[in-house]
C-alpha cells in the first residue's frame, strides 16, 4: 500500500503458500456454534443499524468483552476499514465490524438487508470454553498490519514456476492429499479452495483429502445455510488476517480461505472461475440432479479432473486473463495470422461453431460462426481444461464440454488435437456425431498451416517473445511498425537462446519494468516480457498481485470507475490509466519520476497502436460482432 512506509520483513520463498498462523476458524472440533455466535452478533448489529442508510453507515465495532491487549488496535482497524473500502464491490452490502467473543477480529459481510435479527438461540457461556485467545488476538492484530505492508511480498506456493512454462513444470493432480483439517500443514496453507454441495458433502478441496474434510465441509455448509435461513447471504468473513469468501451457486457452495491479502473482488472472481470450470466439465444440469435428489454425489462425475482445478487455481497467480477478463494473442506477422484465420474460417463455414488455434495460453487465431460469441473467460477455462488434461496431448480427442458464458445448460463437443508440443487446435460443434467430419477439418487445417509455414512462425514467435520494455520507442521519430523488425535485429546480434536475459539491471526507459495493455473493444490484452527487475518467479507473482489489486481498485463499483492511478510504494511505482478504448497497467522503478513515467506510458500506448496488427487479433473479435 502506498501509505505504508515502514519496511517489511523479508519473505521466504517457500514452495507452498504457508501462513505462520493457523486459521482462526475453529476447525479442530468442527463445531459451528462459535461461528454462529459471531454471525448472530453481526445480525444483531446490522439490525441495530437498519434505520441508517446502509451505504453511508459507518462500521461499528461491538466489543462483547474488554479486549485485553489492543496495542495496535486503532491503527489496525483503520487499515482494515481502509482495505475494506477498496475491496468490497457491491454497494448494497451492509457492513458491520465486530469482535468475536473470544476476541478474534471478525467481520462478516452479508449481502441482503436483514429486517431484524432472526430469533436464533444464544449459546450461553460456550464460547468462553474456547477462551485463552486474548494473546493470540494481539498477535494476530499486529500480524495483520504486517501482512498489509508486505502484501504481495509473500511469495510462495505457485511462485516457483516461471510464468511461461507453468504448464509443464508442476506435478499434475492434487498435492498433499494426506492432509485434513487437523493437520498443521493444512492449516498453514495460504489459500484454500473448497467446493461442497448444499448438503455439506465435499466435492473438491485444493489441499487435503475431501473425505477427511467432510466435517469441515459440513461446518461450512452449516454456516452458509444458517445465514441463508435468515433470508440473507454470507459473502465474507474476516478472521484475523484470513478472509473466508463464500460463493453460492444454487446447490453448489464455493469457499476460498485466504491470507494472501488479495481484494475480496479478486477472490470472488476466482471462485466464479472455479465454478465456471466445473460447469465447463459438467454443465448446470447439475442443478436438476440436486433438485431431484439432494443427496446427489457429483464427485464421481468429476473423476480425473483434479489437475484441471489445480491448474486453474495456479493460474490465479500468474495469468492476467483471470482478472482482466480478456485473452492474449501470440505475436505474429499480420499476414501469418490472416493465413491461419482464413483456413479456420473455411472449416467454420462447414458447420463448426468455433475454431480456435492456440499456443499455450495464447491465441493464434480464432473464428466463430456469425453471432456466436466466445467470452474471454470461456476461452480461459477451455484452454486450461485442454492444457491441464494430459490425455489431450497424446491423441486426438472428442469430448463434451460446456461454455458457461455461452450456454451454461448444455454441452458442446470439442475436437482437440495438438499440432505440436505447444500448439493445439480446438474445434467446437453442437453435433455429437461430428468426430469424423472434424477430423477431416483438422487434417485440412494442418496441411494448410504447415504449407504456409504458420506453425514454424508460431514456434519462432514463441522463442522471440512479445513486446520488450527496452524497445519502447523513446524517440517518437524512430517508430517502427513491426515488432518483429526489432526482435529480428536482436536475434541477429544476441545469442539465439536466451534473448531476454541479455538486458540486466535497469529495465526499460525511465525505469519502466513491465506493462499490460488491455484493449477494451477487442477483449484482448498484451503483456510485456518480464525483464530484469521482475525476472524471477517470486517478483513476477508479486507484480501480478499488485496488478490484480490495482485492477480491483480501478474497477471498484463503490469508488470507481477511476481514470488514472499513480501509486508509489517500496516495491514499485504503479501507474494505471483507463480510457474508453484501453486500460494500461505499468510498473516502474520505485524511484521513477512521475512526469517521465506518464510520458513513457503515452509512448507505450502509441507503440501498442503501431504494432497492434501483430499483437492482437483484429477484425475477428469474437465477442463484439
Amino acid at each position: 500500500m502506498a501509505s505504508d512506509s515502514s519496511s517489511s520483513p523479508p519473505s521466504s520463498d517457500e514452495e507452498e503458500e504457508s501462513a505462520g498462523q493457523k486459521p482462526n476458524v475453529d476447525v479442530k472440533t468442527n463445531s459451528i456454534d462459535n461461528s454462529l455466535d459471531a454471525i448472530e452478533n453481526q445480525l444483531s448489529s446490522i439490525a441495530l443499524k437498519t434505520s441508517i442508510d446502509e451505504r453511508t453507515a459507518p462500521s461499528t465495532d461491538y466489543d462483547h468483552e474488554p479486549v485485553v491487549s489492543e496495542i495496535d488496535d486503532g491503527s489496525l482497524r483503520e487499515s482494515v476499514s481502509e482495505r475494506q473500502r477498496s475491496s468490497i464491490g457491491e454497494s448494497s452490502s451492509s457492513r458491520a465490524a465486530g469482535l468475536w467473543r473470544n476476541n478474534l477480529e471478525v467481520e462478516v459481510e452479508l449481502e441482503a438487508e436483514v429486517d431484524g435479527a432472526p430469533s436464533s438461540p444464544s449459546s450461553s457461556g460456550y464460547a468462553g470454553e474456547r477462551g485463552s485467545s486474548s494473546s493470540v488476538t494481539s498477535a494476530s492484530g499486529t500480524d495483520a498490519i504486517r501482512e498489509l505492508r508486505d502484501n504481495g511480498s509473500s511469495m510462495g506456493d505457485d511462485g516457483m514456476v516461471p510464468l511461461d512454462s507453468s504448464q509443464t513444470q508442476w506435478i499434475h493432480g492434487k498435492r498433499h492429499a494426506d492432509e485434513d483439517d487437523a493437520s498443521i500443514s493444512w492449516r498453514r496453507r495460504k489459500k484454500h479452495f473448497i467446493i461442497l454441495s448444499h448438503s455439506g458433502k465435499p466435492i473438491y478441496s485444493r489441499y487435503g483429502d475431501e473425505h477427511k474434510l467432510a466435517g469441515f465441509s459440513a461446518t461450512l455448509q452449516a454456516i452458509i445455510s444458517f445465514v441463508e435461513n435468515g433470508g440473507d447471504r454470507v459473502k465474507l468473513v474476516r478472521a484475523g488476517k484470513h478472509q473466508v469468501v463464500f460463493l453460492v451457486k444454487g446447490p453448489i457452495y464455493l469457499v476460498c480461505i485466504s491470507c494472501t491479502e488479495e481484494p475480496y473482488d479478486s477472490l470472488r472472481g476466482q471462485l466464479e472461475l472455479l465454478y465456471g470450470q466445473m460447469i465447463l466439465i459438467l454443465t448446470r444440469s447439475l442443478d436438476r440432479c440436486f433438485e431431484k435428489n439432494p443427496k446427489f454425489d457429483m464427485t464421481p462425475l468429476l473423476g480425473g479432473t483434479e489437475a484441471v482445478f489445480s491448474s486453474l487455481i495456479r493460474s490465479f497467480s500468474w495469468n492476467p486473463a483471470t482478472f482482466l477478463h480478456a485473452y492474449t494473442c501470440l505475436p505474429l506477422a499480420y499476414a501469418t495470422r490472416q493465413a491461419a484465420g482464413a483456413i479456420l474460417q473455411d472449416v467454420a463455414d462447414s458447420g463448426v461453431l468455433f475454431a480456435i488455434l492456440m499456443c499455450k495460453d495464447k491465441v493464434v487465431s480464432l473464428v466463430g460462426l456469425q453471432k456466436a460469441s466466445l467470452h474471454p473467460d470461456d476461452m480461459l477455462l477451455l484452454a486450461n481444461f485442454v492444457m491441464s488434461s494430459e490425455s489431450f496431448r497424446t491423441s486426438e480427442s472428442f469430448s463434451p464440454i460446456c461454455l458457461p458464458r455461452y450456454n451454461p445448460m448444455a454441452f458442446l463437443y470439442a475436437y482437440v488435437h495438438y499440432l505440436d508440443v505447444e500448439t493445439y487446435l480446438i474445434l467446437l460443434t453442437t453435433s455429437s456425431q461430428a468426430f469424423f467430419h472434424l477430423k477431416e477439418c483438422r487434417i485440412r487445417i494442418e496441411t494448410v498451416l504447415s504449407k504456409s509455414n504458420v506453425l514454424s512462425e508460431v514456434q519462432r514467435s514463441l522463442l522471440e517473445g512479445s513486446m520488450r520494455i527496452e524497445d519502447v520507442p523513446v524517440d517518437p521519430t524512430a517508430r517502427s511498425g513491426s515488432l518483429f523488425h526489432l526482435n529480428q535485429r536482436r536475434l541477429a546480434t544476441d545469442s539465439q537462446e536466451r534473448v531476454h536475459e541479455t538486458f540486466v539491471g535497469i529495465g526499460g526507459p525511465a525505469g519502466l519494468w513491465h506493462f499490460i495493455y488491455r484493449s477494451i473493444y477487442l477483449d484482448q490484452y498484451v503483456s510485456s516480457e518480464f525483464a530484469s527487475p521482475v525476472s524471477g518467479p517470486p517478483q513476477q507473482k508479486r507484480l501480478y498481485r499488485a496488478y490484480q489489486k490495482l485492477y480491483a481498485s480501478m474497477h471498484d463499483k463503490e469508488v470507481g470507475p477511476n481514470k488514472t492511478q499513480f501509486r508509489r510504494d517500496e516495491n514499485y511505482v504503479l501507474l494505471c490509466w483507463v480510457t474508453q478504448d484501453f486500460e494500461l497497467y505499468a510498473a516502474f522503478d520505485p524511484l521513477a519520476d512521475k512526469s517521465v513515467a506518464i510520458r513513457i506510458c503515452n509512448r507505450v500506448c502509441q507503440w501498442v497502436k503501431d504494432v497492434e496488427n501483430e499483437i492482437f487479433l483484429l477484425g475477428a473479435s469474437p465477442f463484439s460482432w
Partner: protein
Amino acid sequence: MPSRRRTLLKVIILGDSGVGKTSLMNQYVNKKFSNQYKATIGADFLTKEVQFEDRLFTLQIWDTAGQERFQSLGVAFYRGADCCVLVYDVNVQKSFDSLNNWREEFLIQASPSDPENFPFVVLGNKVDVDGGNSRVVSEKKARAWCASKGNIPYFETSAKEGINVEEAFQVIAKNALTIGDEEEIYLPDTIDVGSNNSQQRASGCEC
C-alpha cells in the same frame, strides 16, 4: 487421484437433549466416554471411515443439538441426509414419546424423495444405568413403535459401556448405502444452435 470410488454418507443424529447423542458418537468415533454432560450447541461434526463389504466409505456424522431452540436450523442441517438416527433414553419416557415428532419433523424438513423408505435407525440408549432398574421404556414397546413405522431397525445401546454402538453404526452405514446405490445416468442437453439463431440449423454440421 482416488483410484477407487468412495462414498460419503451423511448421517443425522436426532433426539431430545441429554439422551446421549454426542456420547454415542464419541464412543463410536473416538472410543471414549465422559460422564460429564456438555450440551451441544448447534451441531458438531465428526467423520469416520468405514470398510463395508470391501467398499470404503466415509460417514459424515451430524450430531445435532437436542434443545428445541435449535430446531430452526432443521432445513439447513437435514438436507441431503443419507440416514437419520433417532436416539432416546430408555430411562426417560418423554424422550421416547418425542421420537415421533423427531421423525416427522425430519421428514418434513429434509423432504427426501421417498419418505416411506427413508432409512431411519432407532437407538434406545443408557441401558446400563442403574443396572436397568430405572428403565421406563420396555424393549417390546420400542420395537413395536419401530415396526409400526416401517420396520425401523432398533438397537439397545450404552454409550458408556460401548454396548451395541459399533453394531448400530454398521446397520446405519448399511442402510444408508443401499438406498444411495441407485445410479442415475448424467445426461445434460446438447446446445441447439437453432434456438439461438434460426439460420444456424441449416448450415449446421451435416455429419
